[in-house]
């Protein structure tokens, strides 16, 4: 059975975008630095490439997922990925209030995080689910449906911007580092969320 894996590129000080991130400026001011090691055609994630071998391996893993689970904010800022994130896999968009118009392409809106996670898992089958975006990540963490985190820690301090881990409840989440790779100075860390019965 596949896992729900958060994939994010983050500065060492915990930012996933610079200040003032919005549609047309998805990574905020100065946030492009976080994606320096990636090359994309027309902002299409399916075309993402990396210059270094380790980065390319992690990208290949992300693009081998069988479904995408994301938050509404990330989905909108990304221009809905034109309705297709990669290979036409289902895109589950977590939102508080689904818009009146139908979701584009392979996307669909879901309001409940557990339902969204279950739909994404089912859609992915044996493959993993690519989780993307800070708000969806927090929702999945709080609902206990996040299995792993693949964090690409970029060697820079952005100072300000949007944090990956913010506005969380004070409950500890215990993790296990299951892989640590380095490519071109970026640290690719993979953590597994420890389950309640291990603790």
């Amino acid at each position: 059975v596949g896992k729900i894996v958060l994939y994010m590129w983050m500065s060492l000080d915990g930012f996933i975008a610079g200040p003032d991130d919005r549609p047309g400026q998805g990574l905020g001011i100065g946030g492009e630095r976080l994606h320096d090691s990636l090359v994309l055609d027309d902002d299409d994630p399916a075309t993402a490439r990396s210059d270094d071998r380790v980065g390319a391996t992690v990208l290949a893993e992300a693009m081998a997922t069988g479904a995408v689970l994301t938050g509404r904010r990330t989905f909108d800022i990304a221009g809905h990925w034109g309705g297709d994130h990669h290979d036409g896999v289902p895109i589950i968009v977590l939102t508080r209030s689904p818009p009146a118009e139908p979701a584009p392409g392979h996307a669909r809106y879901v309001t409940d995080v557990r339902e969204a996670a279950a739909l994404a898992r089912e859609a992915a089958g044996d493959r993993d689910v690519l989780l993307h975006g800070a708000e969806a990540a927090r929702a999945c963490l709080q609902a206990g449906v996040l299995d792993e985190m693949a964090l690409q820690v970029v060697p820079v301090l952005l100072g300000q911007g949007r944090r990956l881990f913010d506005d969380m409840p004070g409950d500890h989440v215990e993790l296990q580092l299951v892989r640590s790779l380095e490519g071109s100075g970026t640290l690719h860390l993979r953590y597994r969320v420890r389950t309640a019965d291990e603790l």
Partner: protein
Amino acid sequence: MAIRLDMTMSLDGYVAGPDDDPDHPLGRGGFRLFDWLDRRLDPGPSGEVYAEALATRAVLAGRRTYELAGRWGGDHHDGVPIVVLTHAIPDDPPPGSVVYATDVHEAASLARRAAGDGDVMVHGAGAAQALLRAGQLDEVELHVVPVLLGRGRRLFDHLPAGPVELDLVRRLATPETEDPPQQVLHLRYRVRLP
């Protein structure tokens, strides 16, 4: 040689839990961060980095950390000089090997001179932020604990926007056989000069 920040941090960037005060210097739940220190005297990565920290020849800390730590009784380790960065110098004379400084550049140069050929250990989020803003921090040694605290005191906070480029110079993980509470990732970065 190097002014090096040495801090233990949760993966989500906290160096203490919420509500840290003199009676609870690590805040609520913050003790979790220091389980790795159970291995500080053992062979292995955690013992190695701990020995390096104690081989530094001067300490530079912020006032808040200094007070929360009970002023270390005037001696952090081996009687090395302790430079405390503070907005207002206390009326009572500094204990032990402590000197006070009100200016971050002055504090950095005092600590560098005191350390001679050795390194300076920086401790505390406030001092780290002041040194980063002043461009006086050379290296960052982070002990990254595999836990999300969710809330607390952040290490990287109150910094201006604008990239500070780093180079990862070392990465030491505890072995897979390590008990879960004592697992930790020791990362060392060099701060690139602008």
